[in-house]
């Protein structure tokens, strides 16, 4: 029974990882680039939204769109500043480093906006309920439904709609898509905005279950999203969803048996082991089939 309860808690908690991983996966899938400042731009979006809320004293109904708006705007800022200028092949690593550097800027702005180390965050006030001796947190149940719902919508949008085709065409080969007359720069910016909206939803749901926000939230988002995505397979939307749940499950068990520090230790151990053994992710492709010619056509 105890074992089942931990598993339930872990999976429910993992749904927030899934949501963040979806945003990561979207950007990686389309641009083949990693935005290390993703978590920090979500934190910044939240921090600005909280500041606006403080100043204007608005209700939670309006607060949600404000969070989404500022999350997508800060994500767009990262795209314009760190990714758009480095659109060559050599720019892949440069843009990653650039986003790594902008990480500290965004985190610092956020902590200036949230002067106390922790800041309360509006909670959805959903109560916990019990089914057959097992406890379910209502807000976490909501999370997992929304995570599932969003990944389903995203999946349908990317695989079944005409706009999704454009997105995948750019992901498949940006150069060829350009030949088809596709404005790849616009697609990239829109992808970042969409990832910002997704991340905004994730951030709102996660923070409302915690009912507080700390400056560490940015780092937390980046790491958990990254790990969940890499477990599931880089750029795979379904992989990101399941990766998040799996990560939550594993963390819950390890931290229960070995203590809270092991929640984080588990995260990084899994990441390192996956990278060493199967860099393409558990559900992704094996990227190094031909070791000799791994990097390019000669």
């Amino acid at each position, binding site marked *: 029974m105890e074992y089942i309860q931990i598993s339930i808690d872990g999976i429910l908690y993992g749904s927030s990882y899934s949501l963040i991983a979806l945003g990561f996966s979207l950007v990686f899938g389309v641009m083949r680039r990693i935005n290390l400042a993703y978590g920090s731009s979500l934190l910044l979006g939240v921090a600005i939204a909280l500041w606006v809320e403080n100043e204007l004293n608005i209700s939670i109904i309006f607060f949600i769109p404000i969070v989404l708006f500022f999350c997508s705007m800060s994500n767009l800022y990262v795209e314009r*500043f760190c990714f758009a200028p480095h659109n060559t092949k050599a720019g892949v*690593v440069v843009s990653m480093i650039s986003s790594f550097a902008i*990480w*500290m*800027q965004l985190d610092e702005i956020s902590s*200036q906006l949230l002067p106390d180390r922790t800041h309360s965050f509006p909670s959805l006030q959903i109560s916990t309920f019990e089914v057959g001796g097992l406890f379910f947190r209502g807000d976490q149940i909501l999370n997992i439904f929304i995570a599932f719902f969003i990944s389903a919508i995203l999946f349908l949008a990317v695989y079944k709609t005409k706009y999704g085709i454009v997105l995948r065409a750019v992901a498949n080969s940006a150069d060829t898509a350009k030949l088809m007359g596709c404005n790849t720069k616009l697609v990239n910016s829109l992808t970042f905005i969409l990832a910002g909206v997704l991340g905004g939803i994730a951030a709102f749901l996660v923070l409302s279950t915690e009912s507080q926000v700390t400056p560490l939230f940015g780092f937390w988002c980046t790491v958990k999203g990254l790990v969940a995505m890499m477990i599931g397979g880089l750029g795979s939307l379904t992989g990101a969803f399941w990766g998040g749940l799996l990560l939550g499950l594993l963390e819950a068990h390890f931290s229960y048996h070995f203590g809270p520090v092991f929640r984080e230790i588990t995260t*990084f151990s899994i990441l390192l082991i996956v990278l060493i053994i199967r860099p393409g992710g558990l559900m992704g492709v094996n990227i190094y089939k031909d*070791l000799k010619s791994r990097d390019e056509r000669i």
Partner: protein
Amino acid sequence: MSLYFVTILTNMTLISFIAISAYLILIVGEVSFGQQAFFGIGAYITATLTTLLGLDIVIALFFSFMVSASFALVLSVLTIRLSGFYFAVASLSFAELFRLSLYKIEYTVETNSGTVGPNGPEGFQNIRWIFENNVSPDNFLVIAVSSLLALIILLIFMENSKLFKNARLVGKDQIVAQSIGIRPFFYRVGFITLAGGVAGFGGGLFALFNTYIEPSMFGIMLGVHGLAYSIIGGLGYPLGPLIGVFIDIGLLESVRFLSEYRMILFGGLVAAILIIFPEGIISPRLISRIKRKLVKKTNA
């Protein structure tokens, strides 16, 4: 010199070791987000050896170098198939794993100068080497600066060696490197190991200077800074990383009205510099141009 000034200079010197270790890895074409771990390993080793075993600083720093280098060696061999983003994230997770394990390492001993030894989240306190040996801040600065100078001079001399040229070729174009018989594995592993050692050495000095260390000091932000310094400095010359250190700590931190916004300014500055100089300020091309000018002058 005022104590404030000495402290800033010492900090600049110590963080230069991380910057240079990031630089060494960049030479072989990889990006490490985890050099702070080797700095931390070095710090804990020196702290342990000088306090618990009472060893000499030279031996302690030597072990800091060796142990960090060994960890780096293991990491580089394990991640031999990874490059680019994958290596960067692997180094990051290694570093975080190290930092988190520090919270679990507890081995303390009571001495007449207080509790010493790694003590989980409390950190490692009472590293009293500089007090016991009556090393003034000025003298410590001399020690730190001369170690750094020795390292940089060594690197400058090595710059023209076949070893470094081959390593740079491996970093730039593994295909050409292989086509003329250079084994990328050797240079990659070698330089990542060396970089680990250099960071560890700096970490050792840091532990002595700070007199106490704790896990949170070796977080990701330390790595971001070290990497950012060497990236904006450029890969052309070993002095490059120092430019980054100077801009950040020398200018932003020590100018009072800027220091409050230092992280905001510096993060933006790095991104902006990367747009203008994607290869850093002292880029390899710049160095080649200068060399060419010099050759033409001597010929003329």
